[in-house]
């Protein structure tokens, strides 16, 4: 179980705004790692920095031992890092199938591998198979979330970055999505999961980090974190 992805004292800015102030995290192969923190802590900024949408001003990001923090986002995907972004960001005027095809953009289409990927996504999310012709923008929130995850899987990633997959979903659906994340991990994909729903996230993760104003303040294995007093108070609503 080697180190797959690593951030080392990363500083990321939005103009003058200093959003990540020396972030360091490590994700090992095969793990589910969760990043929990309150609004504005810098969780999405961390994922955007990994994917190359934002360039860190200091520090470095390494993937499989090589630096990736100066590589553009469309090249980073090809290395095996996929992201299901915050707010799902489905292409609203493309159909479900076309959205999935865009996920597979970096691979030749029509190959047996492509069909396998599609089949895998449809098996994970049978809803998407039923609605493959529907425009992405007309899907329900939950379906859009499934499509966002499915689309990311179509890139054939070795690590999947998930930004709040439970946002705005009914409890039943949240549970279902988390089960699927677990299954995706069991099929061999490493997962970095950003969540506000710390309870669910810690239940499926191996390890976790707590982020506050752009810095990691706590790191432990998931079970220990869910017993941690500070975490219970701040993120699990346990007094």
């Amino acid at each position, binding site marked *: 179980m080697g180190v797959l992805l690593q951030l080392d004292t990363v500083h990321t800015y939005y103009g003058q705004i200093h959003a990540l102030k020396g972030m360091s995290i490590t994700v090992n192969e095969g793990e589910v790692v969760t990043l929990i923190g309150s609004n504005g802590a810098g969780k999405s900024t961390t994922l955007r920095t990994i*994917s*190359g*949408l934002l360039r860190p001003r200091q520090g470095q990001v390494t993937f499989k031992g090589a630096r990736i923090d100066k590589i*553009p*986002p*469309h*090249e980073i*995907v*090809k290395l095996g890092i*996929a*992201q299901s*972004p915050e707010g799902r*960001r489905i*292409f*609203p*005027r*493309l159909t479900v*199938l*076309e959205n999935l*095809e*865009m*996920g597979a*953009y*970096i691979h030749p*289409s*029509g190959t047996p591998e*492509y*069909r396998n990927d*599609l*089949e895998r996504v*449809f*098996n994970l999310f*049978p809803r998407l*198979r039923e609605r*493959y012709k529907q*425009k992405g923008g007309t899907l329900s929130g939950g379906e859009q979330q499934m499509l966002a995850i499915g*689309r990311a899987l179509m*890139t054939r990633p070795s690590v999947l970055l998930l930004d709040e997959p439970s946002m705005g979903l009914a409890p039943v659906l949240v549970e279902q999505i988390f089960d699927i994340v677990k299954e995706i991990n069991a099929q061999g994909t490493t997962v970095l999961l950003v969540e506000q729903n710390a309870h669910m996230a810690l239940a499926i993760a191996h390890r976790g980090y707590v982020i506050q104003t752009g810095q990691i303040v706590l790191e432990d294995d998931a079970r220990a974190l869910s017993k941690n007093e500070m975490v219970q108070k701040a993120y699990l609503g346990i007094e």
Partner: protein
Amino acid sequence: MTAQGEAVSGSLGTRRSITTILGQIFGPLLQIFYFVIGSAVILGAIVIILALLLRGTRDDIDLLQGTLIILPQVIVDSLVRGFLYAMIALGYTMVYGVLEFINFAHGEIFMVGAFVSAGFGLVLANSGALETFNPFAFVVIAVLLGAAVSGTLAVSIERVAYRPMRNSPRLVLLISTIGMSLLLQDLVRIIATMTPLGFNARVQTPNLGSALTLAQIPLGERTINVIIDSRSLIFILASIVMLIFLNYLVNVTRMGKAIRAVAQDMPTASLMGINVNNIIALTFLIGGALGGAAGVLFGIRVQAINPYVGFLPGVKAFTAAVLGGIGNITGAMVGGIVLGFLEAFVASYLSLFTAGQFAGANYADIAAFSILIIILIFKPEGLLGEATTQKV
């Protein structure tokens, strides 16, 4: 369940059914066809009704007969103008769809295409090959040359003048496009006046054949001649071929889907492995090539051009793009068609109905644009604004 599922994704994964693909290519063209028929029928009915109403006011000519006799020619003229605006409007709308600014230099991209046709004709004439040149080959080669030159030019302009400012306020970009427009006018003017082309360049062509008589309908002691001249026919047919190609490119190919993905959400498209800069360059290439091809066809049809011929068609095509719903590809084509019909009908019939008091292109523009403003007051999102989903 699973077996059936396999079948679904199996067929989805390999090739989409031929009917789906044909639908994606010809669906938008069918929509254009409806608008052509609709515009012709509605405007035709309006002028005939007007002619009947005004019949008594004129004793010099039979207004109804006059109306009917020029009707076929007016419709041919409408189609030529309509396809002209449609092809130029696509360049505006594609760039807007992806980058959300208006590329005001696009009219000049069109003008450069027209000069390519003049240059091509001149080179052939100087080498003595023009007279014997196969007319079909002449048109095809000229269109391809114009598309290549204008497409390359559009891509270069994006690279040097727009890309460095992509994150500046839209107003700054807009000014850059206007500057580029003036620059291109002057550059072409300098080149044209320094070469044998001249400021007023003639577009020489081989003999493109004579007019085609489609029908002769007797009307009292006169006949309605349904005639289409060869240059108009070339214009219309070539436009249709190019629009089919464009629809194939944008709706069916992976590249076209990538263009649409970039237009809808740039950062997310880059997360899919799409090189956004390349796709933006590609939209300039396609838009520029269509504009250049339109310029060539325009040059071949009007046969005399100058460095400022891009301005007015450019502004009108921009209007057409807004009329159709800016950012919407089918909308641009439909908007071009509707504008072409409005203009041609007003230009011809305003003069006839007012006994020549309001003759001339200026009045036609005023009238056509007033109608446009009225349409946009009632439908500010454009004819195909939200109703269809085929934005870029």
